[in-house]
């Protein structure tokens, strides 16, 4: 009798289908097991007989059925492979199109960011120069070579006398503009227009503007 747990290994070993390590272990076992050695000899003899019989009569019914089955599977497999290949090509095209779209969006975003960046830099500078004071306070700007030293709390974009104060509960026109554009307008207005003193009171609806007219001394 052969060892039951090794029979399947023996069945593979006779045709060198066993991995090297398992084959070495089995050969060591075969050296000491008569039953497994006898099984190996019988299986090997049967295998040789099968190949001899292949040319005799087996190629009629049995081989024909197996061949038909295998060939049909190969044909189906080929068709399936073709379908899979086509699907893979479509997926690759979609992936490529998505990658291109992402690159275009990223490039457009980068260009937009670079264009917006200088304005932000000006806004930061302007923001430092025109910090809003608390209501009811007056701050003094440092003297500059081009402008006389005046008391000012804020330099408005336009002459404030021409601009009606915002109604309570509504937002002013300035509030609807981006902060960077507002700051830029303020810087330009500071260079072109005479210094203006804006007095903020406790009442948000009451703002007093004083325009300094240098021509009258």
């Amino acid at each position, binding site marked *: 009798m052969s060892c039951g747990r090794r029979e399947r290994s023996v*069945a*593979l070993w006779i045709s060198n*289908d066993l991995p090297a390590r398992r084959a070495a272990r089995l050969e060591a076992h075969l050296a000491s097991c008569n039953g497994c050695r006898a099984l190996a000899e019988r299986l090997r003899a049967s*295998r040789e007989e099968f*190949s001899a*019989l292949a040319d005799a*009569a087996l190629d009629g019914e049995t*081989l024909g059925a*197996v061949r038909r089955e295998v060939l049909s599977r190969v044909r189906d497999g080929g068709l399936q492979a073709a379908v899979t290949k086509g699907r893979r090509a479509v997926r690759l095209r979609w992936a490529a199109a998505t990658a291109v779209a992402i690159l275009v969006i990223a490039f457009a975003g980068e260009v937009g960011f670079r264009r917006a960046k200088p304005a932000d830099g000006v806004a930061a500078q302007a923001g430092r120069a025109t910090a809003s004071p608390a209501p009811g306070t007056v701050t003094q700007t440092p003297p500059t070579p081009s402008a006389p030293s005046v008391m000012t709390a804020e330099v408005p974009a336009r002459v404030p006398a021409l601009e009606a104060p915002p109604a309570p509960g509504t937002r002013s026109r300035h509030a609807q503009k981006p902060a960077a554009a507002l700051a830029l307008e303020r810087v330009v207005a500071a260079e072109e227009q005479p210094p203006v003193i804006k007095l903020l009171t406790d009442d948000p609806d009451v703002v007093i503007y004083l325009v300094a007219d240098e021509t009258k001394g």
Partner: protein
Amino acid sequence: VPTAPLDDAAPATLARPGDQESRLDVADRTRLVRQALRRLSDKEREAVVLRDIEGLSTAQTARSLGCLEVTVRSHLSRGRLKLQAAIELAEGGGR
């Protein structure tokens, strides 16, 4: 006309007394193997036929059946053992 003694003639050209018996034996063995093959499952039969009778390698058999080589080995080992058992049973308890 050249002549040759019978003893020098090629063995294949001579009628052998065991030929008829040998042909019958082959037919019987073929029938026996065919019946034993029917006892295997489809997968086992395909693996055994392609590997042992058609002479394909394990890799070729796996490609033909559309499965992994390890699967072919599994079907092959089971199929060979079943086939051997069926043949030995039909022969009356081993050769």
